[in-house]
């Protein structure tokens, strides 16, 4: 036990004394969260909208107010005539124009059916689509709230409800992804580099000649990174809850349990990499290339897996972070319990056991 504590405290010293390691350990996740949260987001905020209100009645004003108070839009100008529409697009002063027809309120109440014209600048088709969806959503919610008391005869309204993420926030999608990415990357990289460093410096031999059990060496090397990863995870979680208003609806215990599974899988991958190379650079490259790229592309948080060609989907199946991503999303956003994610957990668990077994085996062979 004494050996173990001596070793673990030495390992912590290595980490805390090396600025580069510290920066990577804590700088990387924070940078990722800030980047994905504020810079690389596909949600649109405060988009400029121009309004041509030919009705100027209570219904149109109420909708305009709703739009003005939403996060997505900022009313740039009120147009006076049709002629202004073209001009506002050309000047680029707004991305969307909304036209309320004359007698909007009367027609709405009288005929039960009325049209609003939404004109979008579709030079960026994705943005135009997203913006018109936002408008649809706002108008629909107005209908639900305001017109519910009116006796509406048979009328089919497409009611859009965005479950679990009513405001269509990007954070709910990427935070679990960033967690998976950071855990995979940090754990794998840190363990492989720290073991290979001992090999490179010749201290590994000294350790192997010492009476300390080689497996204890490996375990006590992994423990600090396991603890630091949990700290890291907590930092990301706190940042995303308090800074990005990320919901957390599930059980923290379950979440940390599942995260530990991923961490152990990543640690054993790191161990595996360290047994197959002797230089820190190689270990770093393998960890970065082997972990970063597939985790980014094939976990599902950047590009939907459903749209990928079958071979890529199959490859994604063997990436542990892919399963963790599903699990983390289910727990955090949907607040689901173990019953709903046991299948993914089982897959992740088997992968962890698999990686752990072969890395221990390989390590053992190397000792001979």
């Amino acid at each position, binding site marked *: 036990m*004494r050996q173990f504590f001596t*070793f673990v405290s030495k390992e912590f*010293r290595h980490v805390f004394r090396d600025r580069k390691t510290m920066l990577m350990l804590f700088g990387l996740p924070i940078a990722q969260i800030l980047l994905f949260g504020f810079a690389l987001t596909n949600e649109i905020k405060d988009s400029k909208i121009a309004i041509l209100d030919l009705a100027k009645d209570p219904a149109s004003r109420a909708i305009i107010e709703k739009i003005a108070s939403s996060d997505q839009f900022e009313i740039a100008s009120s147009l006076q005539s049709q002629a202004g529409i073209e001009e506002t697009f050309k000047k680029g002063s707004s991305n969307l124009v909304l036209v309320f027809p004359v007698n909007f309120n009367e027609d709405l109440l009288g005929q039960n059916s009325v049209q609003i014209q939404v004109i979008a600048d579709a030079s960026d088709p994705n943005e135009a689509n997203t913006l018109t969806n936002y408008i649809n959503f706002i108008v629909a919610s107005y209908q639900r709230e305001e017109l519910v008391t009116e006796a509406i005869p048979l009328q089919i309204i497409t009611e859009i409800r965005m479950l679990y993420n009513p405001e269509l926030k990007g954070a709910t999608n990427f935070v679990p992804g960033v967690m998976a990415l950071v855990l995979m990357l940090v754990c794998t990289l840190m363990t492989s580099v720290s073991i290979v460093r001992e090999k490179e*410096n010749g*201290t590994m*031999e*000294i350790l192997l000649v010492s*009476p300390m059990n080689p497996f204890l060496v490996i375990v006590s090397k992994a423990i600090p990174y396991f603890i630091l990863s949990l700290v890291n995870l907590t930092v990301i979680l706190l940042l995303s809850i308090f800074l990005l208003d990320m919901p957390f609806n599930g059980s923290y215990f379950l979440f940390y349990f599942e995260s530990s599974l991923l961490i152990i899988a990543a640690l054993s991958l790191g161990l595996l990499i360290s047994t197959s190379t002797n230089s820190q650079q190689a270990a770093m490259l393998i960890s970065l290339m082997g972990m970063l790229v597939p985790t980014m592309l094939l976990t599902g948080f950047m590009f939907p897996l459903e749209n990928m060609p079958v071979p890529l989907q199959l490859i994604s199946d063997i990436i542990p972070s892919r399963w963790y991503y599903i699990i983390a999303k289910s727990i955090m956003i949907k607040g689901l319990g173990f019953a709903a994610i046991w299948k993914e957990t089982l897959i992740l668990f088997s992968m962890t056991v698999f990686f752990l077994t072969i890395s221990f085996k390989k390590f053992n062979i190397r000792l001979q």
Partner: protein
Amino acid sequence: MDKIVIKTDNLTKRFGDFIAVDTITFDVKEGEIFGFLGANGAGKTTAMRMLCGLSIPSSGEASIGGFDVYREREKIKKNIGYMSQKFSLYEDLTVAENIRFFGGIYGLDSQNLKIKSQEMIQSLGLESQKNKLVASLPLGWKQKLAFSVSIIHEPKIVFLDEPTGGVDPVTRRQFWDLIYTASERGITIFVTTHYMDEAEYCNRISMMVDGKIKAMDSPANLKSQFSAESMDEVFFELARGAQRKAD
């Protein structure tokens, strides 16, 4: 002084077709300074790794401190110290932290460790540097510290694999003073080296050529046997027939 602490009998290590160490047989007595010489690639390091339990022999017998290298590796580990070719302390830890760490993994209790580390720092004259990172020490000091750390647990035998590589002659001389002091305390020294002047410091040496031991005796006897002036000449005489290229 006549107790045998290292005993090998036809010890062999093969890597595929290549025979790195070919049926070597020798004894080392307690308290002896045994020089293990040979050109690069002659098989010195491989032989030493087998004796330390880092590598399992392909055939032959060997016992270290009375323990068998196949079956009692854990017991051997408790009774030996090892210093490798590469400088092998942690450069990003301080002198005191390194001593505490290696003492700790050899199972020294904290009381004992405190006394030991104080002694060691004092005898090496490192009082003013003890809280400095090892990386900031000159190489000679590092080597001396590494040696002291390798015998912190008072092993019966210490294995030194080219301990003085890249060190100036004055520091090398000081290093050998440390070795003599350890030897006087009854620690058996098993040392490999390239430097023939160092060979003269040993009680007995063996010369390895192409995986085999070609000669083994005291430096004085070897010189008269080969009617040579210095160990350099003895070495050239023996190594001339080598087939393997230096790596």
